């Protein structure tokens, strides 16, 4: 489902990270991911949405309808308390994971 460049679970982590600063609608989340990864991750944008709904089902994020800055109705997502906790734990795991993988792949550099 995800693009070939995306590690499993990475998208979820990126979504949670995007929401950690405050509620966003789906499009804004997508844009944040695009911009903050500098378009390196080549993902089909639509994939974002099933991921959002899955996270919502797991009660890591919550939704509410609101109005955008351009005065349009849109669905906003925000982190739940469980989502925030999950994000912290996953970030920690991610750091260890990357550190370990980096150490293995590029010995001596860190």
């Amino acid at each position, binding site marked *: 489902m995800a693009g070939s460049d995306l590690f499993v679970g990475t998208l979820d982590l990126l979504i949670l990270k995007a929401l950690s600063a405050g509620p966003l*609608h*789906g*499009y804004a989340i*997508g*844009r944040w991911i695009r911009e903050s990864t500098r378009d390196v991750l080549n993902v*089909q*944008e*639509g*994939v974002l*949405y*099933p991921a*959002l*709904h*899955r996270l*919502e*089902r797991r009660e890591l994020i919550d939704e509410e309808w609101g109005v955008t800055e351009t005065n*349009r109705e*849109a*669905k906003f997502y925000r982190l739940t308390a469980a989502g925030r906790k999950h994000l912290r734990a996953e970030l920690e795991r991610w750091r260890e994971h990357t550190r370990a993988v980096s150490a293995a792949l590029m010995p001596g550099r860190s």
Partner: protein
Amino acid sequence: MSGWFWRRLGRSDARRDVEQELRFHLEMRTREYEAQGLSAGEARAAAEASFGDRADIAALCEAERAVRVRARRRGEVWTDVVSEARLALRSLWRSPAFTAAVVLTLGAGIALTTAVAGLVNAYLVRALPYPDSDRLVFVQGPGSPDWRDPPAFFEDVIAWDLDALSIVTGGSPERVWTSWVTAGFFEALGVKPVLGRLYTADEAAAGGESVAVISHSLWQRRWGGDRRVLGQTFSAYADDRPDDAEVFTIIGVMPPDFWYINRFTEVLAPLRAERSVSIARLAPGLTLADAEQRLAAAARARNPERSEVRLVPVQEALSRQVRPVLLALSGAVLLVLLLACGNAAVLQMVRAAGRDREFAVRAAIGAGRRRLVRQLLAEGLLLAAGSALLGVLLAWVVLAGFGEVLTRVLSAPVPGGTAALRIDGLALGAAAGASAIAALLFTLIPLVSLSRPDLAASLVDGSRSTDSRKRQRVRSTLVAAEVALSLTLLIGAGLLVRSAAHVQRQSLGFNERSLAAIDISLRQRAFGEPAARVALFDRMREHIEQDVPGVRIAFVSWAPFSRLGTVPVETPEQPMADSAAANVFAAAASAEYFDVMGIPVVRGRTFDATHGLGSPAVAIVSERLADRLWPGRDPVGQRIRIPASPDMHDTRPPEWRTVIGVVPEVRKTLTEENPPDLYYAWAQDAPYHAELMLRDVSGRGRLREVQDAIWRVNPELPLNTVRWIEDDVATASLPSRFLAGLLSSFAIFAVALAVLALYGVIAYAVMQRRRDIAIRMALGATRGQVIALFLRWGGGVTAAGVLAGMAGGFALSQVLRSQLHGVSATDGATYASVALLLAAAALLATWVPARRAAHQHPMNVLQSS
């Protein structure tokens, strides 16, 4: 089914939701590309390309979403119920007086309903505790076949003969009711003895010494509950075979709660004589009419003149006596319940009117009408549930605590024993039904007045009245209905109270104070000759007078309040064949009887020593009998005859008796029609059965001395039936007093409810219209005019209620008819007085708050608001 529903709902919701979300994304992305300089078409294409397969993604999203929505819906229903209940509980908690009033009155109403449903169930509905009891029938009439030759469609037959045994061995002699019954009795009624065994048909048929099964109470009383009683023998004289003592071997003890068809029976012994069938169990599938016809045909073949036969289901026959009382009670209880519900509804309505602002605010912040209904329903259900709980608890206490008393008052044993008086399915159903109706009323009635315009108005107007006409009309109707219902009960109660007072007050015709009676039966062969009996009684009198000084005694064959049997009389002018011939209560009385009883001789004289055996027969008649037989003539010197001595064992031919005196009438029972009295001379008649009347014996000790004195004369005389006439009179009046008391308390409760409702509504109206009244008064209205304003409304409602209540009372009085003594069902005085009483209470309930309204200072009210 419901799963499918939720899934459908979840999916369609999810689809709309996802669609919108994806569309938004594409639009935004298109705009972004446009901003980068692409044309509208290119931008759109680019956005779609970078998005991916839209249909695929939408499907994935929907699936996720549907799962989530479904889960949440389920959770929401439960959370909603809990939060709604919590909200309702808090709201009720905030108005404790209202909550207490509703739960207490409604609880009492439900308790009564439940208890009476328990009674009705035990007496009228539940099957008798016998196997296949629905097929058990009494066989009545001369056409009933002999028990030894029953028709094929009788599965089981019972025949019995009621008798009395004088037990003369072991302890003091005692006379007990005995049933000679066929072995089929035990089989047909499914009896299991607590000790020993029952007799078989073969044993019953065998001659010689008889076996006996004794009752649990006799076992306890006479054998102290000793298990070694089996195999013991006792000898006794049977009333029907008085010549020789018979010996019985005890083989079994009946269970304590066994409900005899004759509940006084203490000894059961085999019936050996020819007897017609008393009870039969019909073959399945046979109708009563069919069986009756076939029996009658068979009887006609035997003897065309004695073919009449009737079958009555046992249950129907046994409940015939209590049925009208229970029906009257059910009706009364239903009225009380209705009243309690109505009252609760009125209270709830008044409260709801005061909550207009609360509801308006809730509506304004987005609570829909459905939300408000849900809240009212939650409150109604909580109140009803609380009341039901209290009601069932109370009913349980009533049935458990007063079951004995109730059965005594109804003067009918409960089939299956007092334990059968319990709260079971039907009673619980009644409680549930009652509370469900109450809950519905709670919810619906305030709703009638809850409509959108009202809500808006009350939010704008604030404290000012928003009492709509519709609401006022509903309240007036409710209050009028309450007045009507309470008057209905009040009329029923008034009639019963008057009836009970009549029963209590009616002159007995004798002085029942400190008067005791000892029952004496002379069945033995030794007393076969009249002279022997007279001599025995004379010796008894001597011994008692000598051993127990200060006691005045007299003999009579049947005293008042012992039994009510009648015999026809004839005079030379009115022979027996004459249908107008009177039936009388006939008794042999000794010379002192009238003096000891306190019955004055109003004409002629009483018996004396000259009226002995062999002297010309004489009689004393009551005034009513004299008026009936010889109107306008002097009864003294007239002649009168009864066909034979009322004592069955007397075989002497009837003789003409000359009337020597006239006495006032004496009551033999309290509630039944009493026949006139005829007395004949003790010594001339020499009856087998005597009641020794004792005046001025105080306490059991003195009675014991009298008994000992009698036993010194003859140690074999059974003297167990010793009674105080005063107690008997009180017992006889118990049912009427109880019913009157019960219905009176219902009625008082009902009136209190109605008055409370009226007061509540008026007080509320006064509060609502405070400003209005103040303005009127400021403009010159007098206090009288203000009070009149409310009195007019209260009076109108009361008048409507009283009119309807009169009709209701008339209907109830028709049901009660069989319970009314000495008062007509349409007794004008009762109707008028209770209606006045109720109207007065209603006007007072109106006047008190109205006066308060009239006495406030107008300026204070106007300035404060």
